[in-house]
């Protein structure tokens, strides 16, 4: 069993949204409002022209954090949200009753209602479309022009992601909530 996570060299992100479109095509995400598994948060530049603070404008790629202590899983009344293989937080559409409690509970806005299945959907780390078929990358990682994303096994000390996390400083989002997220933003 692996424990997959993703490190993001987010400072290299150019907000091209290749990841977002790759995810939509890979996972058949409908092209409707609110339907996205992955997004890039944009912090608008501060300052007045021409004195714009360059550091203030950041791009913050994000998706489900596959929390080790996932509030979405905790609140699910039917265990439709569950810890899948390799620590991935998954949604079983058969069991999902669409109470949307998990959407309220997720501190990262990572979930949405898929209008086709009328169940909750979110990033799966491509476990069903890619990892199950023997691939080792996610669609968003593979397509990224500046190679922001490093996906891999956190339990394998030799993996690139483990090496990165061992040698670089990183931060996580809303860690104080105790969610133990598995996205790591390399600073």
């Amino acid at each position, binding site marked *: 069993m692996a424990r997959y996570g993703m490190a993001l060299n987010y400072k290299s992100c*150019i907000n091209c949204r290749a990841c977002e*479109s790759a995810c*939509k095509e890979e996972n058949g995400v409908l*092209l409707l409002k609110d339907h996205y598994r992955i997004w890039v948060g944009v912090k*608008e530049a501060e300052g007045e022209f*021409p004195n714009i603070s*360059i550091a203030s404008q950041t791009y913050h790629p994000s998706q489900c954090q596959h929390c080790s202590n996932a509030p979405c899983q905790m609140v699910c009344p039917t265990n439709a949200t569950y810890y899948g*293989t390799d620590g991935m937080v998954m949604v079983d559409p058969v069991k999902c009753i669409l109470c949307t409690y998990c959407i309220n509970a997720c501190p990262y806005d990572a979930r949405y209602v898929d209008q086709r299945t009328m169940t909750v959907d979110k990033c*799966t780390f491509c476990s069903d479309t890619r990892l199950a078929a023997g691939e080792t990358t996610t669609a968003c990682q593979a397509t990224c022009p*500046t190679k922001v994303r490093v996906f891999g096994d956190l339990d394998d000390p030799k993996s690139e992601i483990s090496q990165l996390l061992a040698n670089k400083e990183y931060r996580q989002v809303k860690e104080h909530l105790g969610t133990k997220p598995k996205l790591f933003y390399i600073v």
Partner: protein
Amino acid sequence: MKVEISRRRFLQGSVAMSIAGGVGLSSSSMMASVAAPAKGKLSNEDKKVATLCEMCVNKCAAIAHVRNGVVQKLDPNPLFPKSRNMLCARGNSGIRALYDPDRLKYPLIRDGEKGSGKFKRVSWDEAYAYINEKLTKILDEEKDNRSTVAFCAGEGMAEHTFKNFFTMFGSSHFLNHASLCLATTVSGYSLTIGGYGQSDLDNAKYVIMAGANRAEAIVTPDTMDFFKRTNGRGAKLITVDPRFTNTAAKSDKWLAINVGTDLAFVLALTYVAIKEERYNKAFVENYFNGFEAYKEHILSSGYTPEWAEKLTGIHAADIYEVARDFMAHAPQAIYYQGRRTTWSKNDFQLRRAQAIFSAMGGGVDVKGGICFGRGLPLIDHDVAAPIYANAKSRIEKDEAAVVGGSGSWVAFRNMVLENRSPYPIRALFNYKHNPMQNMPNSAKTEAFLKKLDLVVTIDTMPSDTVMLSDVILPECTYLERTDPVVSYGGIEPSIAQRNKAIDPMFETKNTMDIMLGLSQKVSKSLFEISKKHDEDVQMAIEEDGEEAVYKDFDLTKPFLHSQEELNAHAVEKYEGAAQMLKDKGVFYPNMNEYFKKVGVNDYEYYPENKRAYSVLNNKFKTPSGKIECAIPSLAKRGIDAMPMWKKEYEMEIPAGKFRFITGRHAQFTQSGTNNNKLLLNLVPQNYAWINARVAKKLGIKFGDKLEVSSKAGKTTIKAYPTEKIGPDTLFFVHGFGSYSKALSLAYNNGGNDAAILEDGIEPMHGSTCLHDTIVEIRKV
């Protein structure tokens, strides 16, 4: 690992539906498709076809996953050094172009007033016959002056196939995107340092990007190589742009420059380097031609940073700092060439000044500088073209100093429109090009297209230009065709080939087949016209007999072989290349040995010592073999031999008005993707950037509708107040606001910049000046 329930199966069904029905992904078909059986694991069952993306000029290598004749997914193909294992947002959305319900499906002939949007469906043969009839009539009336028929093309892998038809046809008028895009910078750098070259952004330590927005205007491998390194990993970036772009957000310094004043900025940088003697003296001494005179010119003209500050709006202190830092990092320092450089009247001189300044650091043909790289030559498939005695020369050849093989589009159009043409221009063949949106002043382009007797357009979508054509020939999309194999020279050269993922849908055809069908139809009858009007032909027939002469004039010759055959022939001299290109899409010598995966994201294409950083041995491909500071031959044609600032370059912006600039967006390609459902899902339309404080004063809030107008015309667009642009500048992304009602998503969606741009040209190549328009705004 267990196979989780896949949402993907829903997609599979829906795409299949869209083909069966010939229409798009309607929500009802989506619902219906839920019942489609899951096909199990994806990758193992798919047919994987190595193709090349054609959503923009870069041609990134992709793998198309095909199942049951349906393209399911496009993935990056890591083998191609130029695209470095990536597909951008547009590349990922290619399937939406393939299955766009609005795409052209059948040949069409106009069936109503031009511009009425009424067409009737015809067979290919009927379409060819119609063209044949018109062409013979025109050429008969024009006494076989083949130049009365013009050809224009956008960039594309099959552009050459189309051009073969043009060459065989014998017109002088080929017009392509160059005079709307990169003519000035390519020639500016070529005439100065001997080539446009490739900026080695993988190794450069200091880069000035002025008016090049690589984070949004994606150019491979520059975009990928550079932004991996900019933030904290070794490369310094100075962005010079009137807007705070995504590139600016990644830079160490952003210099907001007044539009059209870059030449003053570069001259001042040069002044500092010379005055403070910071340039690479050894390099300049050995490899520059005419530097002393240039030095003298710069110093005596007083191009000081203080002088430039007044023009550019950039602080003198910043100019000093950038000049010093640049030279301190040289030769691993680059003044980036730029790409779409059709800005204003001084553009050619600007590019020359950039090239000279860059070369003063010695960063030419060295690692981390501007490199020329190596090529992997292909074997040409040559066909001798006939000579037509009555074909006259280009009408716009004297509209600028040097009008090359790709013409001056704007000058050409305007001459025809204003009846300044020495002989009538009566027909236009158009391949993969949308001048209605991509040439300034769309009202003029519309009048021009209406004036012609015959406009034939080969396109995939009902673009604005298509709607003003007489005959529409639908090409299949790139995923449905094998295109000519292409060799990409550079630091890490390679050959790449697009292989057909699925058969052409509907009645579409690839360019090769279209040209074959057309030439078969018109060849004989056009020969008859030449026979009638061309004395040389008549004489030749007398001497050699008609059959032998016709052989020379047989237009079908370049199109008789299949693309696959031609491609195999082109790479014959590289062992195993043809098969490799078919299977993997990419080939270069020793690829099997060199190509390595070196990390989860990283690949090595060539070992360091095999990369072609330095290839020239300091013999530059200029007339003198050196970096040319002056080009006296140009002076004779009214072009300054050395870059200099002129009063006429200064443009007043009246109070309350704005200077308009245009440009790229990372999720769209010019006008070609404005109907793409996936991309519009990411960004629904373009917005006008207006300075936030100015907007506030005018009572304009985010999303308010503005009417933007100029001398050329007007358009409406929503407002995006932001501090990322100055108070006297207005910007919006190019390519939106289509007039074509047949584009159901693009029609009237956002602002159309071609409607408001004025159509001045610069004096060197007659390239268009896209940033010389003053606009007004009004809230509506």
